[in-house]
């Protein structure tokens, strides 16, 4: 078992390193908001000590953390899955002695590790640019944070994998991806801390899965949640993980029964 995992891991790692230039540039795109959004907010304080409980220092920390955590727990596997299905590559994977799900999972993990290393220079730049603002002693790095991060990792991967798998039953998936991006962008805390949102949206975000793929660990990290808030958050997140896993099973059952294997 471990041998299989290691083999998958090293193949993917090598593959990922080939495209490193491309990946680095994409990461730059993600890094722009980490530098730019705090600037926009800083120009908005107008002498106030905080906005919705966020001091300038916390705001800067938040966006830098969004960049780092997105790099660690994000997942773009849906693209790979949808492509494999569309181009008939899936059939090849189905006859291998290791499940397609594991192939994808380790592809995702190795890619995350590559990304984290590649983003280090950008993270260092972020720390240098913002060193006057960052206050790291107030960050809450206890066990709850790591649990939430782990949940975010699995939820991200599962959602991404399921959405990619939709290609099994839908011919056209790109508009579905756009809708997913839209909600992800809106409700995951990527554009701004959820505390900045109108209260209706905050409530919506609490019960949707998107908060748990990014914002939730960040809220714990920046000390915005009480223990009961953390526990209820973990429960809602786990429920979503279960729901998405089930949905994924359904998609695969339905998809594999119907006619596919494009390209054979």
């Amino acid at each position: 078992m471990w041998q299989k995992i290691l083999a998958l891991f090293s193949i993917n790692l090598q593959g990922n390193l080939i495209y490193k230039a491309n990946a680095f540039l994409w990461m730059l795109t993600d890094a722009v908001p980490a530098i730019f959004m705090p600037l926009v907010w800083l120009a908005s304080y107008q002498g106030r000590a905080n906005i919705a409980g966020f001091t300038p220092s916390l705001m800067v920390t938040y966006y830098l953390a969004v960049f780092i955590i997105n790099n660690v727990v994000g997942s773009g596997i849906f693209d790979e899955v949808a492509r494999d299905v569309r181009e008939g590559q899936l059939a090849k994977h189905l006859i291998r002695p290791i499940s397609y799900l594991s192939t994808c999972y380790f592809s995702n993990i190795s890619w995350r590790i590559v990304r984290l290393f590649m983003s280090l220079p950008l993270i260092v730049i972020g720390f240098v640019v913002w060193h006057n603002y960052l206050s790291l002693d107030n960050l809450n790095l206890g066990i709850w944070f790591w649990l939430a991060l782990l949940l975010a990792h699995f939820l991200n991967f599962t959602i991404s994998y399921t959405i990619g798998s939709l290609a099994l039953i839908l011919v056209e998936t790109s508009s579905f991806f756009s809708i997913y991006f839209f909600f992800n962008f809106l409700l995951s805390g990527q554009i701004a801390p959820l505390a900045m949102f109108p209260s209706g949206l905050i409530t919506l975000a609490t019960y949707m899965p998107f908060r748990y793929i990014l914002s939730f660990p960040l809220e714990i990290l920046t000390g915005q949640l009480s223990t009961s808030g953390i526990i209820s958050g973990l429960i809602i997140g786990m429920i979503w993980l279960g729901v998405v896993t089930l949905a994924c099973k359904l998609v695969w059952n339905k998809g594999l029964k119907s006619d596919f294997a494009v390209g054979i």
Partner: protein
Amino acid sequence: MIKKYWNIYKVFWRTSLARELEFRANFLAKIGINIIWIGFYVISVAILFNNTASIGTWTKGDVYILAAFFTFVEAIAYTIFVRNTQEIAEMIRNGNFDGILLRPVNTQFLASLRFVSFDELGTLIGSLAMFIYGLSQSHASINFRQILLALAFVGIGLIIFYCFAMTITIMVFWFIKLDNIRVLMTSTLQLVRFPADVLPTVIRRILVVVLPISFISTIPTQALLGRNIEPWAGVGVIISLSLFIGVKLFWDYALKAYSSASS
């Protein structure tokens, strides 16, 4: 001479439109996607202004006008040349570029303008909507002179966009695989999405004279609303026009270096 080129350009529009109308459902889907992209921006701005009355000296209305300018410039750029610059890279790779060289018109004109893309129609509509909303929220008094000046700056913004896209494309003559650099363009263009005032002075000046993308949004908005225009904008105009000539020279130089992939 100009008449000949104008007639050819009209043909580009006609053929591109005919092609577009063959795929009507696809066309509508693209408009939907455009509107989602504008939605991203509108939501970010709405959340910002849910928590503050202004960004620096920019009120909500001002920011929407700024957004209208950059979405407008980007939409026009995508309509008239961005897709062509991508095609050029592709043609150089597969050797079809030879066909462009054989035609009896200016190569740069033909290669960079021949496909008109209607993909961004939804963005144009969104841009207009944001403009109207922004004006209704802004208290600035606007006169004819300010409008003309703003339009002139939008023109400069488009020229810079063209130079930016073409410079990246021309490098394909030497480095056959260069799609990546395009991503760099996307990230850089994110910097025009908010007023340049929020940036540190050094970067702000760089965006006026070195990489003058402030002409895409901040400067036209300042001109329209009758505010103080970015310092050194005059220098920026001269630099942008020189860049345009520079791109033409670079293109001619690159053509000499072109060694066809097909023959």
